[in-house]
Structure formats: structure tokens, C-alpha cells
């Protein structure tokens, strides 16, 4: 389809040519019109909110779908069974029935959006390194969008020696954290690292924050300090929800430098979610290699817009004020582009900071929390 081709061309232009508001809005409204038509449920939902495709003037008018809705409904512009892939969130409480599912009707579109963005932020110097993934391989985690993304990157950019270092049984989650746990293939990973050191070949190590904590803890326990070759870089993502150990970012990056020899400028955080095909990267490595001052923030690619909304009123907030993150992702052409997350963030110059999940706090009062009641009774919805 026409829009599909246009978007692929747009993604191919890369991340360095911003799309002005007018051009973005024009595309966004066409995407909205397509989604409202091809997904009748979303179309009715939008109309019930008083916004049909004829009413929207800009991307921010398009009614967002909350991320949790992906647990209840297949939000696809077409037959969900025709999907090339179905990515599933790693889930927190309540079991299988409560996981979000993203039916990806066109993997080519997905790859077209993910590769230029990843390359620009992890391989800005054109490096084609061995990629060591602290993740289970795709065969073990076919529903993980994170594993899929790394696999696609490995195929396109990874040198020989690339591989997965989490054993079968380690769960391959995505934004909520992936397995490692007991599943880290530590000996193999060590061999791979030693090989890279011997060959003086810079590597890219990719994984969830939690898997890195696990690996670094093990290195510390063994009193080991590795020195990955200069130019090596690290990609980490995800938080610590549901895990026993939570580590502040600065502490993690300090341990990365201490135990792996990778400086903070070469540690790139990725913020993404199963419900959204595009990713948000930190530009720190790009900036460091270009000799620019390094400033941590997450930057939307040109085909994504993000704004921060007042949690109560959903009114847009100015930079500097904390609120809920609302994204419009053109790459979500075949599902829903306008997404209201449960993530808290704040807009800063040239991007935003993610501050954490809004859904993590303990409920107040003596009344039981939804999750507690449902897991206590063994119910899933």
C-alpha cells in the first residue's frame, strides 16, 4: 500500500533529518484515517471520543489507546491471524491471560524502522562488531520484541562471534526485563569476551538492565574485572519491576565501567515497549564520538512524536513537568499509533527523560489492590 511504502522511504532517510510538524501531522492523519477504517473497533472508539479522521487536525488530536488495552483486544488493521509475528509483554502479575499482545502484520515495516534508528545510536561510527546478547535466542523467546530486535540487528550488523548468552528457561521479556536470572551462560560469555579481548575487537553487548546486574554481580563475587576492547559499547533496557534487586542507573553504569571497562559514554539506554514498534535511544554514544557534550535523554526518531500529559486531566504539560508519556508512532501503521503509556516522564531539550512506571506504587487504603485480588483468587482476565 502507498502509505506503507512512503513510511519505509521515510525510515530509510534515517534519524538525522527531522520531519517538520506539518509533514508529520499530514502523515499522522493519513495513518489515523487508515487505522480508523481498517480497525473498526478503533474507529468506533475514536468516534465515541468525538474525534473521527475528519475532525483531527494534528497528531495530538488522535485519541490514544492505553497500553493495557493490548491485553484485552487484538488491535490490528486487518486479521490478527495474518500477523507476521505476535509480540507479547513479559507480564507482571496474573499470568498468561493478562499479557499485552502486539500483532505485527508487517515485519518488513518494523525492520525498516528499527534498523536505521538502532544503527545511528549504537553504531554511529559504522562499526560492525560481534554482538553479545544477554538474552535467550529467538527460538527460545519468539514472542519477545526485544530479542527480535537484537536478532535483526545481529543479522544486519553483527560480525561472526555474535550470539546469545542466556540459556533456555531464562525468559525473553522486553521492556519489563528479560531472564538472565539463573540462565546466564557465564562461562560461554567469558570465553566470548576473552576471544574479543585477544583479537582486540570492540564488541556490542546488549541486554536488559537486570541481566547486566546479574552478570556484574557474578563478576564482582569472583573478583573479576574484564577489560573489553576500546570502542566496545553496551545497550541496556528495561527496569526492575517484579525483580528482587533494583539498582539505580548511576550505580549500574559505575559497575559497567568497573567490571567491563566500558565508559558511561558508551552505555546507551533504550526505551521501548511491546505495544510500540519504534524505539527511543539515548544519543550519548553519537555525541561522544562526535566530540559533542554528552547529555542523557531519550530522543524520538523523526517518525515518532512524544508529549507529556498531566496524569489527572491528560492536558499537555510544558517541558520540566512530570507526567504520563503519550507517543504517536508512525511505524505502528498496522496497529494503533497513538499510545498512552503508564510511564512517567519529563520533556527536556531535544527529548525526554523516562522516570519510571506510574503503575508501580502501592495502593493506599485498606481496600485490596486489583492485582492482589486477582492473583489471590487465581483469576486471570
Amino acid at each position: 500500500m502507498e502509505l506503507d511504502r512512503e513510511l519505509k522511504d521515510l525510515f530509510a532517510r534515517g534519524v538525522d533529518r527531522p520531519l517538520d510538524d506539518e509533514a508529520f501531522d499530514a502523515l499522522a492523519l493519513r495513518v489515523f484515517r487508515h487505522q480508523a477504517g481498517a480497525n473498526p473497533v478503533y474507529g468506533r472508539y475514536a468516534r465515541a471520543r468525538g474525534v473521527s479522521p475528519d475532525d483531527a487536525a494534528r497528531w495530538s488530536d488522535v485519541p490514544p489507546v492505553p497500553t493495557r488495552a493490548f491485553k484485552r483486544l487484538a488491535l490490528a488493521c486487518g486479521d490478527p491471524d495474518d500477523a507476521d509475528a505476535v509480540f507479547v509483554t513479559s507480564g507482571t502479575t496474573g499470568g498468561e491471560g493478562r499479557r499485552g499482545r502486539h500483532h505485527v502484520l508487517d515485519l518488513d515495516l518494523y525492520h525498516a524502522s528499527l534498523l536505521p534508528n538502532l544503527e545511528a545510536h549504537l553504531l554511529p561510527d559504522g562499526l560492525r562488531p560481534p554482538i553479545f546478547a544477554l538474552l535467550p535466542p529467538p527460538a527460545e523467546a519468539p514472542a519477545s520484541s526485544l530479542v527480535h530486535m537484537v536478532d535483526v540487528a545481529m543479522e544486519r550488523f553483527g560480525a561472526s562471534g555474535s550470539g546469545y548468552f542466556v540459556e533456555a528457561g531464562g525468559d525473553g521479556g522486553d521492556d519489563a526485563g528479560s531472564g538472565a536470572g539463573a540462565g546466564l551462560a557465564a562461562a560461554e560469555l567469558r570465553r566470548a569476551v576473552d576471544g574479543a579481548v585477544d583479537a582486540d575487537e570492540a564488541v556490542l553487548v546488549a541486554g536488559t538492565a537486570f541481566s547486566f546486574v546479574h552478570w556484574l554481580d557474578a563478576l564482582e563475587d569472583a573478583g573479576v574485572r574484564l577489560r573489553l576492547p576500546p570502542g566496545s559499547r553496551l545497550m541496556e533496557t528495561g527496569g526492575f519491576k517484579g525483580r528482587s534487586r533494583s539498582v539505580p542507573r548511576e550505580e549500574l553504569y559505575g559497575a559497567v565501567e568497573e567490571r567491563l571497562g566500558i565508559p558511561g559514554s558508551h552505555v546507551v539506554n533504550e526505551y521501548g515497549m511491546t505495544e510500540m514498534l519504534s524505539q527511543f535511544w539515548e544519543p550519548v554514544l553519537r555525541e561522544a564520538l562526535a566530540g559533542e557534550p554528552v547529555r542523557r535523554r531519550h530522543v524520538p526518531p523523526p517518525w515518532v512524536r512524544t508529549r507529556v500529559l498531566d496524569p489527572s486531566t491528560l492536558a499537555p504539560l510544558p517541558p520540566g513537568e512530570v507526567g504520563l508519556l503519550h507517543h504517536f508512532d508512525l511505524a505502528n501503521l498496522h496497529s494503533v499509533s497513538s499510545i498512552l503509556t503508564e510511564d512517567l516522564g519529563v520533556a527536556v531539550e531535544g527529548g525526554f527523560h523516562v522516570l519510571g512506571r506510574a503503575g508501580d506504587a502501592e495502593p493506599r487504603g485498606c481496600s485490596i489492590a486489583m492485582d492482589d485480588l486477582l492473583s489471590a483468587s487465581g483469576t486471570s482476565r
Partner: protein
Amino acid sequence: MTAFDAWWTPGPALRGEPGDAGRSGELVLRAPEVDGAAVESLARRLRRGREEALASLDADDVVDRIDAVASRFLRRGDRLREQALELLPLTTGYAPAMAERVLGGMARDWQGDRLRGLLEAEFDDPAVLDAFRPGPRGRRLRALGPELTFHVGAGNVPGVTVTSLVRALLVKSAALVKPGSGDPVLPVLFARGLAGVDPELAEAVAVVYWPGGAGGPEEAALAAADATVAYGGDEAIRALRGRAPDGARIVAYHHRVSFGIVARDALSAERVEETAYRAAEAASIFEQRGCVSPHLFYAERGGDASPELFAERLAGAFRRLEGELPSGRLRPDEASAIHQLRGEAELEAAAGGGRTVYRSDDAAWTVVYDHDPAFEPSCLNRVVRVKPVDEVHDVADRVRRYRRHLQTVGVAGAGGRLAGLAEVLGKAGVTRVAPLASMAWPPPWWHHDGMDPLRPLVRWVDLEG
């Protein structure tokens, strides 16, 4: 940022300067650091204090003293009341009208007539708390409360922890109170008030704060006390039991789920508006965070107003209630949960799922009519579902799987069927069936989670012959 001294002890009992002890909502808490040794020392002091005053007071005298403090919370212009009303919105997010309503409702039940009602409901002769009294079958009976109880509060429904303290005092127990981070204000103000009324009695009370889960002081308190009264979620209580010595006496009040039933008589043309108002009010008190707060309403088919229409009327009632009892400030996570729930419900409605969503423009209130009768908990803060049921008795089957957590059912319009309904609900796990209009305010003599409030604390001594 307003700061609050989140502790009270009789006289100087804790060493060290008060420092930053975290936050309760918008309120900065200050408290001295407390370790296990300090708790043990405090426990000894509380026992002595009890020995010297509380132990020799009649229960009736204790009631009078508590009543005097209650009166202060209820008297307009009283400094204690003003402080409470100034601080409660900061910890709870309540609008001022809600803070007044909640303070008023809780303090009313600390008044003398209500407490006497509690004593009389629990003991054939409440004087057994003071001396041996003739009892059934020719015995004389004496009821002795624990010398020292440890109270662990949780959540932020204001006043729950004070009620726990009041119950302990009624059975002549000295009390070491550790409020949850959500409700530090009223326990401290109550203790200050009590000290003003009777400084010697107040020697048996201490309110101490430490950050959640801190091992040392909590374990010391669990070991030093003769009994512990704990409020919290299942996991928190499980952890607490784990930290207590073997065989420790623990009275636990877990988090609960409550709901409402609107029977067809209450959906008559004459009554439906009133019913909708009562339902909205019940779901708004405590911003729906109380154990007594209804998560949803089952509406019976066959009345003048259908369940769908009742949902619409309920939405109207929430809208109007905003004028009288405005919604409070929400934490970002609470507001986020509301928007997520709304979006899910609206999409399901669009998918033809027999749902209708009514909501305020902001996150103030939400009503979802949901034709699926399966019970679903709410994310709270004035978010309710209305689900249809053919016959009120059918509700019992819907909720039986939650039997371990059920508490209150507010009922309207059951008429002659009420007793039968209460029977099936009771068997399904419910511990309290009340009129919809009063479900938010259990009387002091209620069987709290199915238990007597005072009896679990006392030890009986029989004198035969």
C-alpha cells in the same frame, strides 16, 4: 513543604534529634531514629505507665477520657481539629470537605456513647474488665487485656489506627503504635490530645514512626508486646508473622473487598435517584480506598430502571456529588490506572462488548456499565462498575471465589428478601451486610472482618465456686 513530627512519647523517651523520616503524600515526616534497643526501653516504660495509671482505671473512666479527645476533634475551632483538617489533605489528597466528613465520621465513633455501646455489645457485663463479675453457670469472670499491644498501621484511611489504639485502651492495654506512612497524623494528634486530658493515662501510649519494613525496631516491638494488631495486605502480614517470635499473638486485618447490591425495589421510579446518590456517596467516601468501600454494584433486572439505566443515573449522581464532596488529588499512578481502565473499557465498548463508559473530563469519577457479570475489582478513587444480575441471590456465586477477602456488602431495595440474601452472602464469605446508605460507616461494635473487635485481645480468668 509542611513538616510534621510523626511521633509522640510520654515525656522524653527517644534519644536523638528528629530527622527526615520520609513523606506521607505531601507531608514531610520528621522522627528520631529508632532502633531495637530504643523500642525495648520504650516498651518497659509503657508497661510501667500502664501499671501506674491505666491498669487501675475503670473501663468507664477510660471511655470518658477517650470521649474528651473525640470531642476536640468534633468541636469547630478546636486546635486539634484544625490541625487534623489542615494535615489530612496533605497525606491523603482529600479535598477539605472529604477530610471533614472522614474526620467527623471516625471521631464520632470514639465518643462515649458509641464506645459504651461497643463494650455492652461484646461483654454481657463490661465491668469484667475492671473486676471479677458474676457470669454464666455460677462462675465469676474476669477479662484481662494484654499489658502491651503493638499496633502496625497501613494504608491511609485516617483514623483506622486510632480506632485500633482506642480498642487497646478499652481493655487496659498499653499501646505502642506504629502508623503506616499513610496515616501518621491522627495517631499523633490523638496521643497529644489524650496527654492533655489525662497525662498519667497517656504514659501508657506511644506513637513511633520508622520507615517501612525496618527490621530492628519492628522485630523488637513484635517481641516486646504481648499481642500485635496489624493492618495490611496479605504479603505484608505474612512477612510480619515471619518476623514475630513463634507463638506470638497477632490479630490481623487484611485488605478487603466490598461491593454493593441494588435490588429492583431500589430501582423503582420513585427510588432510583436516591439509590444512585447513596451508591455514589458510598463509593466516594475515603475516595473508595476503605475496606468498606464498594468496588462495584450489582444491579438487579426487573425494576423500573434497568441496570444500564442505573449506571447512567449513577454517573449523574457522581457528577452532582462533585459539588458537595469534591474528588481529591490523585497520585500519578492512581490517575494513570484510571485512564488505562477507561481506555480498555471504551475499546471493549467499541468492540460491541456491551459496555458503556461514563466519566468526568478529568480523572475524578468513572462509571462503567459492564454486561459481563463476573466480579472485577476497581482501581479505586471513584471508579465503579455496574453489572447486571437477574436475581440478587445470584450474586453469591459471582463472588464466592474471593471469599477470603470479602467484607461488606451494601444493599438497597431487597425488602423481604434481605435475610435470605444475607444468608447466602454470609456463606459466600461476606462478614457484613449493611444498608447501602451506611455501608461506609460500620458501627464500633461491628464484627470487624468477622471478628469481635475487643474479645480477641482479652484473656479470660474463671473463678469457680
